[in-house]
């Protein structure tokens, strides 16, 4: 049986019907990893669990007994003595890690180039970045070295690599999925989520990992929807389109987005223009809050109890620690951190207002498609600029999903995103599923897989 491109749920069904053994599944993916991993540097650690179905895990989730580095030299030899809640729930549902995926060190970046263990390459074009920080997880799916993956997003780190690698990436509402055991980047923003080949897989994996966790005080106690069921009851939505989200976006991406908007309209949904606060303020809010929290969260790495000492921080981590330390320091706290927190509230209020008029927002995920490796170094806080379309929703804690919506002239994937109100993952998945059924994502995923037979 040719397994190439089979979704996680398809594999699950085949195994349940005994048309396929877990042994075969594991052999298949481990062989592919053997063959292709070195070309793209996707997995930092390969795990031969050979139990349950395999899933790729970003290397910032603590996995008991399995090396977890956050792609940093400091944690190069760190073996966690405990399991993150996300991986614990996966294991309880018979999904076992097949490997730990490369990422930007400490999740600082949007290209996987700040990894202390070398960049991951984009399966569509090895000279390009897969995006980041969950670049390894996105590439693992795009090259089908794993049927599905778990990533984490602070502001764009799931959606942007999903867009650049041509896969589906779901960032849930902040607090919907437990952060316990996820190596903290910016605690008020961090959010685990799935990267998959189908909308159904994303819904299914969210179902598995979502819900209140007694070990994460910021996890939400609201009940978890039955995503798979709710996804398939065809709903009609009012879709908001904000002009600010189309500024400075490449022409080819705009065209692809417009094409999807037309399809959405044809599916019977209403399109409505909305006005949102310019994303340029979200960049500032995000930069200040994220770096403040980073400077605090990275304080525990002193090399005494585990890992190496602070001299081993890479340039990007140091840069962020410096700014964060400044924003929290005496005399500047009010002007920077406090101001950013207030502006954040302003952005939240803005979304609240807008979601009275509309159900969901549709927008491009990124202003450009995958860049060549090395491009990032040339610009100041380039990551923040790359994630300009992801930051507003992230700082408001909103759920969103990236969908492949076409290819550009370089044959690189284009991503479009649906942003929804708090805890409305079911609606986001519902519309995504309708688009998937209607377009099969313009065959993007299948075309990508052709390279990696």
């Amino acid at each position, binding site marked *: 049986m040719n397994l190439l491109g089979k979704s996680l749920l398809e594999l699950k069904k085949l195994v349940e019907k005994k048309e396929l053994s877990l042994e075969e599944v594991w052999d298949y993916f481990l062989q592919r990893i053997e063959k292709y991993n070195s070309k793209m540097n996707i997995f930092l650690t390969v795990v031969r669990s050979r139990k349950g179905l395999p899933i790729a895990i970003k290397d910032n989730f603590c996995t008991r007994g399995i090396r977890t580095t956050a792609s940093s030299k400091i944690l190069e030899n760190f073996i966690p003595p405990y399991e993150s809640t996300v991986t614990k729930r996966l294991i309880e549902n018979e999904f076992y890690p097949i490997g730990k995926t490369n990422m930007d060190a400490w999740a600082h970046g949007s290209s996987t180039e700040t990894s202390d263990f070398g960049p991951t390459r984009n399966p569509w074009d090895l000279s390009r970045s897969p995006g980041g920080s969950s670049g390894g997880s996105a590439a693992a799916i795009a090259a089908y070295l794993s049927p599905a993956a778990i990533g984490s997003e602070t502001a764009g780190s799931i959606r942007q690599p999903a867009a650049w690698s041509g896969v589906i990436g779901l960032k849930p509402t902040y607090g919907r999925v437990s952060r316990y055991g996820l190596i903290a980047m910016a605690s008020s923003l961090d959010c685990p989520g799935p990267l998959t080949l189908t909308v159904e897989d994303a819904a299914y994996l969210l179902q598995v990992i979502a819900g209140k966790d007694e*070990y994460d005080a910021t996890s939400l106690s609201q009940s978890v929807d039955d995503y798979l069921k709710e996804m398939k009851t065809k709903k009609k939505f009012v879709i908001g389109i904000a002009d600010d989200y189309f500024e400075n976006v490449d022409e080819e991406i705009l065209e692809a987005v417009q094409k999807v908007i037309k399809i959405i309209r044809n599916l019977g949904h209403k399109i409505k223009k909305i006005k949102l606060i310019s994303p340029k303020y979200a960049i500032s809010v995000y930069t200040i809050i994220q770096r*403040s*929290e980073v400077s*605090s969260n990275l*304080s*525990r790495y002193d090399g005494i*109890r585990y890992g190496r000492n602070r001299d081993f921080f890479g340039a990007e981590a140091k840069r962020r620690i410096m700014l964060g*330390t400044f924003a929290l320091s005496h005399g500047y*706290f009010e002007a920077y*951190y406090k101001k950013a927190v207030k502006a954040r509230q302003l952005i939240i209020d803005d979304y609240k207002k807008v979601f009275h008029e509309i159900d969901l927002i549709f927008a491009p995920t990124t202003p450009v498609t995958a860049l060549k490796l090395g491009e990032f170094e040339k610009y100041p806080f380039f990551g923040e600029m790359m994630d300009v379309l992801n930051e507003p929703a992230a700082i408001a804690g909103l759920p969103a999903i990236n969908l492949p919506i076409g290819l550009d002239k370089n044959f690189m994937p284009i991503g479009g995103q649906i942003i929804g109100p708090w805890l409305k993952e079911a609606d986001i998945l519902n519309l995504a599923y309708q688009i998937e059924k209607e377009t099969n994502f313009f065959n993007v995923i299948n075309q990508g897989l052709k390279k990696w037979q």
Partner: protein
Amino acid sequence: MAINYDLKNYRPVIGLEIHVELKTKSKMFCQCSADYFGKKANTNVCPVCLGLPGALPVPNKKAIEWTILIGKALNCKINLVSKFDRKHYFYPDLPKGYQISQYDQPFCQNGFLDIYPEKSDNLEIALKERKRFRIRRVHLEEDTGKLIHQGNETLINFNRSGVPLVEIVTEPDFSSSLEVKRFLEELQIVLRYLNVSDCDMEKGTMRLEPNISVRKILNSNHPIPSRLPSYKVEVKNINSFRFVKQAIDYEIKRQIEVLEKGENPRQETRGFDEKKGITYSQRLKEEAQDYRYFPDPDIPPIIFENEDIDLIKVPQLPWENLINLVKNFSLRYIDAFILTRDFNLLNYFLNLTNEIKKRRIKELITIEDLHQKIANLIINKKTIIELNFDEVINKIKDAFIVSPIDEGLLEKVVKKVIINNSKAVSDYHSGKENALMFLTGQVMKETKGKVKAIKVIEKLKTILSNK
């Protein structure tokens, strides 16, 4: 150490920072045991209190309730909206590089503690003489690990890391070491009444950091300038009330000497050397610490309703009991004061008197100053509280119920002994205490021990003095 300095021109200004470990079952943000004492090093730890990557804190409800209880007992305003903040600094005993503490919205603020005099002729005078010391804040934080300095190494044990720690900060209202000592004793008693901490200085479950400065005044009649001195000296590592007194006295003397030379004492942190009874410079505070406080994003805010706060009940506190004992039990102030020093003594007294009332023991109830007598009994022999009520009630009967026959018999015997021992009697009159003991022994012998020594002595004294 003799204190010899002239306070005429100086007025000490002393404030206190007191840390108290709560005796909850669990630590502050994880389920490890808060009782770390005597455990093998680094066996009472988990990902949270060891600060592992990805670990998150969840607050212990009881620790929060107890902090509010302390605040209420100290007459504080309770903030309905509060939060935890991160306080950043690097030290090997601090696993996360920050301590979870409270900054601008502590659970409790602006309270006070009244200190009553130990001795007073009556309650009215005591109420007039009581001193009020203001409490600035009471907040909750987590304890650090413990360091052991050994050879070229400093070893770290994280068993204590994350134990709930309440910080009580006073206003700089103290002007002598004695005031400080009395305040601390009272605070310790209050916290033990609340049953939230052992407050054991030696074990380190109660820790003190006085900050001391001295300001010049023109003379003792001149009004004190309202501005505080420009510097402050903090003294650390003090583990008894006696030492805190010594340390403060030493500091006052040292600082006055500096001021006398026309210099300003340095703002610094000093340690205390118990053997020498002196303080020594630890680190200068030139570059003020910048703790970079900000709200801990891992912990949602804590928002109470007034009703929640009302549910946290403060038991009767020492001074309330003191007033009760004087007013309703007619105890002498000084005895009521002593009884209320120790929650166990007080309870025993209250329960015992209640029991006697309940059992309607006529011959006891009719004794006029029974309560004072019982109080004396307990105060003189504290171990009495280990006896059960039957035993102790018999003891009381023995001691205080005197039948008239016995009385007559006793007088007869006493007189006989006085006549038969004229040498001892004259010794007694010339001031030899032993003589009284000898005579008592003789009477005891004659009465075959049926009469209590106290009674005998009493009788002897009366008859001898009538002579």
